[in-house]
């Protein structure tokens, strides 16, 4: 037994099953819709509307703008849900608005987590709630992670209050080669998934290299059972997808296939590929495969060996979404090092800090600090404000939402964190968090601590967490 598994997801995968819930039901999913597409392009649209905010300014804080810029003794002004002004101490702000003194504090764009399973593997992690891996076939490009999301996962609220997370991508798990579509959310409590859905954000496709797919299916006596099997099934699938996409583009009749729709959208650049991949050699194979079939990988996730091929990632314009210091929990993670992020960054590639974890998402700033310190010790001198790009504009770009959020630029969403100190310090926590200009967390106001339905009426509800 493992009394203390890593996250539910990892523990489940290590055990070689789909999860404690091991979605082992016989596959009886509704068959794909038939016939010509009379269906809408966007059948599960976002219903998210920014909550009311009031014009707000923060004065006197150190600002990291999320794109590498820093303003000391800065001013940021939010109104109508947007960043309206940002600048030095003389930046004009209207009278009669809420002004917070940021002296000794820091302001950053909200943290963006590109790799989360909140809602799909929610708290409590009981079998009945385990909805993150459709581990019934290695190719499940037809499933959408958004259809598993339980908005009553308390993990969202902790990510907000302790982590300053304002946007996050929820991905299917990594049991499958093609895990399904991801969804990007605003970290706003809601009754429905649609109420959290980031308006206009592109969907992603989760893919996975390596140990997980080959173990999950190999242990069932099915393909793939090897890394070459992984690649073979991937390539066969892309061949079918290209045929499907060509017919679709030409307006030819064919049975609508949800999985093929996903892959055709990837081939047409509408869906971004997020590829779980640990080893350098496997990432290189995936890069060649993406060229073979004409698609683009937005980011390799986990990528503990990204530092070995940082030049390849740079040359191919692929981001690496990484932990601060995870290593060694399975064979393909054996060569993880703390300097991964700074080495990728120094090579000129796009580095991102991600969590993949309900606890880690509450401290992505500290994960970045581990890497930042390790990098500086080996002579990679990255400033705090530049390192903040790992949590801001870099993930925003890899998720296709950089036009709307990910930095404090005039006209962008007012997704803002006021930290009570330097956010790379262990001693620092979010003091206030705004999402689209609405104050949704205030450490000084217990009524601004979200309490999800699951917690309501339970011991500890509304407690400081």
């Amino acid at each position: 037994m493992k009394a203390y598994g890593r996250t539910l997801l990892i523990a489940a995968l290590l055990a070689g099953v789909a999860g404690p819930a091991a979605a082992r039901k016989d596959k009886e999913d509704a068959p794909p819709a038939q016939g010509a597409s009379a269906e809408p392009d966007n059948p599960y649209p976002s219903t998210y509307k920014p909550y009311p905010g009031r014009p707000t300014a923060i004065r006197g804080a150190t600002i990291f703008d999320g794109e590498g810029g820093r303003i000391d003794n800065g001013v940021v002004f939010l109104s109508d849900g947007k960043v309206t002004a940002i600048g030095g101490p003389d930046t004009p702000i209207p009278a009669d608005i809420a002004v917070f003194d940021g002296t000794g504090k820091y302001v950053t764009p909200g943290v963006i987590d590109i790799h989360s399973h909140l809602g799909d593997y929610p708290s409590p992690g009981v079998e009945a709630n385990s909805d993150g891996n459709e581990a019934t076939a290695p190719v499940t490009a037809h499933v959408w992670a958004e259809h598993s999301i339980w908005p009553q996962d308390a993990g969202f609220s902790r990510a907000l209050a302790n982590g300053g997370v304002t946007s996050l991508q929820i991905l299917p798990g990594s049991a499958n080669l093609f895990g399904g579509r991801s969804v990007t959310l605003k970290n706003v409590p809601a009754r429905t998934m649609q109420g959290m859905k980031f308006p206009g954000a592109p969907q992603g496709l989760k893919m996975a290299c390596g140990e997980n797919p080959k173990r999950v299916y190999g242990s069932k006596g099915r393909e793939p059972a090897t890394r070459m099997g992984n690649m073979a099934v991937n390539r066969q699938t892309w061949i079918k997808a290209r045929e499907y996409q060509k017919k679709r583009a030409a307006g030819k009749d064919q049975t609508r296939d949800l999985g093929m729709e996903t892959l055709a959208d990837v081939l047409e650049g509408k869906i971004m590929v997020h590829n779980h991949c640990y080893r350098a050699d496997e990432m290189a194979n995936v890069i060649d495969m993406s060229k073979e079939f004409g698609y683009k990988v937005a980011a390799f996730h986990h990528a503990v060996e990204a530092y070995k091929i940082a030049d390849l990632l740079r040359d191919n314009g692929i981001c690496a979404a990484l932990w601060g210091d995870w290593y060694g929990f399975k064979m393909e993670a054996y060569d993880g090092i703390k300097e991964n992020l700074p080495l990728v960054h120094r090579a000129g590639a796009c580095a991102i800090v991600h969590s993949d974890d309900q606890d880690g998402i509450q401290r992505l700033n500290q994960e970045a600090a581990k890497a930042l310190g390790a990098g500086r010790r080996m002579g990679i001198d990255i400033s705090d404000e530049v390192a903040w790009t790992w949590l801001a504009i870099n993930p925003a770009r890899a998720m296709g939402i950089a036009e709307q959020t990910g930095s404090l630029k005039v006209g962008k969403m007012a997704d803002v964190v006021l930290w009570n100190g330097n956010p790379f310090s262990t001693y620092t926590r979010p003091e206030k968090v705004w999402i689209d200009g609405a104050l949704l967390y205030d450490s000084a106001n217990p009524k601004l601590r979200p309490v999800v339905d699951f917690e309501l009426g339970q011991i500890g509800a509304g407690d400081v967490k």
Partner: protein
Amino acid sequence: MRYPTNKTPFALFQRAACLVRMSKGFPSYLLKRQKGASTGSARTVLGAILLATTTTAFAQSIVITGATLAIGDGSEPIKNGTVVISAGKVVAAGAGVAVPAGVKTIDAGGKWVTPGIMSGFSRVGLAEVPAVKETNDTSARSPFSAAIDVAPVINPLANPIAISRTAGITRAVVAPATGTNIFAGQGAVVDLGADMSPITKARAFQYVEMGEAGVQEAGGSRAAMILTFKMMLREAQDYAKAPASYDGRSRDALLNRVDAEALVPVVSGAMPLMVHAESARDILAVLALRQDFPALKLILAGATEGWMVAAQIAAAKVPVITAGLEDLPSSFEKLAATQSNVGRLVKAGVSVSMGMLTGDDALQLRAATQQAGNMVALLKVPGATGLSWGQALRTITSAPAEAMGLGDRIGSLKAGKAGDVVIWDGDPLEMTSAPVAVWIDGVQQPLENRQTKLRDRYATPTEGALPKAYEW
């Protein structure tokens, strides 16, 4: 894997050790230390001879001056502190300590000095790659449970030991995991030194699951779990009364002879019983076990909802080893989880340590400083209960040492304690900081590991005149 060549100034030993290295494949520094504290595991005859002849040679006398100094006993750090180490032990630490003449002095101006960090809970040395079963010795489906003893199988060459040492972790509690019934077996306290004798205290405690995990091991209900516990301890009492006549093979027996024998010191209180329980109700049920077995020397592990029954835990004088940062209702036994758990327990008078109770227990012992630092962060969060810096450091130094009954030997920089010392390049509870020097039992430790080797090899990712495989 390769290790650095020996760089110690002790030529005599180097030569002897080289012979060992050639014959055994061990790097020389792995055999250079003798530890008075060891109660422990078997050594090779050759190793024992070597160690016996080099006892004093390798425990350096060192003076560290000018540091921001934290003792580890809960007191706050002081400026310009001095630490004196000799013969493997702390001679003195504090402000205004006299500096002995003729001793190697290290100026730690601008740096921080703490006792070595101790993980209050881990499985380090029991697994190299936890998911690779051949390397994972944490649990077993075997005929045995309570008799299992991890001490002889702790692997001092496991890479996570070197990686943790590099991060300033010098000691750790190591627990087995259950595999057969609610009892997992006997855990140890280890040091993370670069040598072949890791044991500080073998058979330091017995480990038992008494929460959701224990329920599973006991067949599916809490009632069965409590009854199983009581009946097993009664069988141990039977064994103690008449070892020769204890059968343990009959169909009714819950324990075989060796498992019954292993629980005898638990019943008598000679061996601490570390009980993993998370929920408030399970914790109270654990404390109530003393009604039937008054001598039980309890240690609570987990205790995520401990704050709800903090007064009872304090009254029972039971130390707690917890994860610190749990704040999600991640299971029904953790509904009331909050990061303020540690602060509230300490406020109630409970001795609290922190350890790896939420995963990565074989690998990420270095999270200790992050756990402690976050307790300090809570001081600035309205409504939260945190710890002062000194109290936070105590949870990862002297508190776990005391919980293991080793408070007189390790865990702080008080005179007479083991010379486990770390010099840090900044505040040790900040994630940007790291050790610049580590001593265990007064012996300076190597700070290289395969991660630093990989880092150096790939500082430039592209190949040079030869492939990367030639860069080492």
